[in-house]
């Protein structure tokens, strides 16, 4: 099992969800993050104070999947999240040793393999 972390543009979040849905990846957790990458800083002014802001709002997906679902998940994130401009984001794959479904206590595959739902 892997934990797939995807960071995408907020305006693409719904497209990603749609793509994941099509890939039959059901369980997903997402949150708001701010990211700094290759994008240019923007300048903001508040009265006499001028600031350079190097952070962009991004949406972070956290998706636990069984191994065979890693690639489909990555593809879904790419398809749904790509605009082709700097700032599209990144995907990170981390090993997942155990997964537990709190409701039932059942472990591992049972807790993440989408088909099991």
């Amino acid at each position, binding site marked *: 099992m892997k934990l797939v972390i995807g960071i995408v*543009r907020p305006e693409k979040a719904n497209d990603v969800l749609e793509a994941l849905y099509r890939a039959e990846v059901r369980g997903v957790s997402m949150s708001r993050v701010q990211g700094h990458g290759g994008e240019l800083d*923007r300048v903001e*002014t508040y009265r006499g104070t001028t*600031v350079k*802001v190097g952070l962009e709002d991004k949406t972070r997906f956290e998706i636990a999947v069984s191994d065979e679902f890693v690639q489909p998940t990555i593809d879904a994130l790419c398809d749904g999240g790509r605009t082709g401009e700097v700032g599209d984001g990144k995907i990170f794959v981390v090993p997942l040793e155990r997964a537990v479904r709190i409701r039932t206590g059942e472990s591992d595959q049972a807790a993440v393999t989408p088909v099991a739902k």
Partner: protein
Amino acid sequence: MSALPIAQAAAEIDTGDTAWMLVATALVLMMTPALGLFYAGLVRSKNTLNTFMMCVGAIAVAGVVWALVGYSLAFDGDGSLIGGLGYVGLNDVTFIPREGTTIPHLLFMAFQATFCIITAALVSGAVVERMRFGPFLIFVALWSILVYSVLAHWSFGGGWLAAGGTLDFAGGIPVEMGSGFSALAAALVVGARKDYGRQALLPHNAVYVLLGAGLLWFGWFGFNGGSGFSTGDPSVLAFVNTLLTPACSLVVWFALDLIRGRKVTAIGAATAIIVGCVLITPAGGFVSPGWAMVLGAVGALPCYAMIVWRPRTRVDETLDVLAAHGIAGFTGILFIGLFASLAWNGIADGLFFGNASQLGDQALAALVTPLYAFGMTYALLRVMGLFTSLRATEHDEAVGMDVVQHGEEAYASGEGAILVLPDADGEVLVADPS
């Protein structure tokens, strides 16, 4: 600017009427920031400030233009199509009351100014989240003259509609229909938001919407109650109806929401308050409290229908100005022709009380105003579009208008923001945090 001797002016002025009109004017001015709050709550957070700023921009631009020329065109003399230039630059606008009023002329002008301001601000609802701020300010300047001043002259300033007998107590013609049908034109010319119809674009703060609606209602008592320019019976009638009509609209809206979605919605309630206030705007001083309540209940139906139907079309008239103001104003204007009552307004009866001609006068205004407002606004924006692009790029729209148009965030956390320190000579150094 010459001013006649103070004493002479004072003669005809009534302190009570003046006291009320001072308050009414302040209340109506307050409506525009309240509208900014209402609108800001209805858009996505990344467009919050831009939306609010369109209302602030309207105060600035329409306010100044009104004082310089708009007021004169609307209220100088009784030309049938447009007023004169006698009051340009507030020339001759002094303490001496206008014919038939008991308040200083200067105050009358200020009261009317707040109407022009909020009407221009209302139109912004059709183009928020995508129209560029600069072009919008220019639009406001021209629109307030080409559309508002003209309609105000027709209905309030002794123009052909007023002269022809059309009744409009507080602005169903210039304010409500004027803004509503101009909004439709603006939405068509500027075009839909890039994600309209394919993504969910939701109100980011419904509390702003509810509070904004509450403050708008509060201000509307000055708007309608002040349109008699005194504390006389018509003013009191319009004022009280401004309480009764929206209350009925709310009840009916609750019912319609229940029928449609089995839930009473908060955004719907806020909308119902606006619709109710608009419905009674033209009719306020002409119909009995009982009929005002009927108007609130019945008049809510077409507006509700329009609000449900419009999003199914390709027309991204974003904040439904047409439904809440255009249709409601239209309904209110016609309602006068049906249920105006001489016993209450001392001026004219409607069809229901035996005076069919009144309905004709009202229908005429209900026909001509939409055509003029829509046509002129459509032409104005088309022409403007020849010189500048009216809307932001897709990329800017995606980033959000606050950052792109104003270089600010509505809710800045300061995280990741590096201070730029200009030294005395203005040369720029980046702060070294350590």
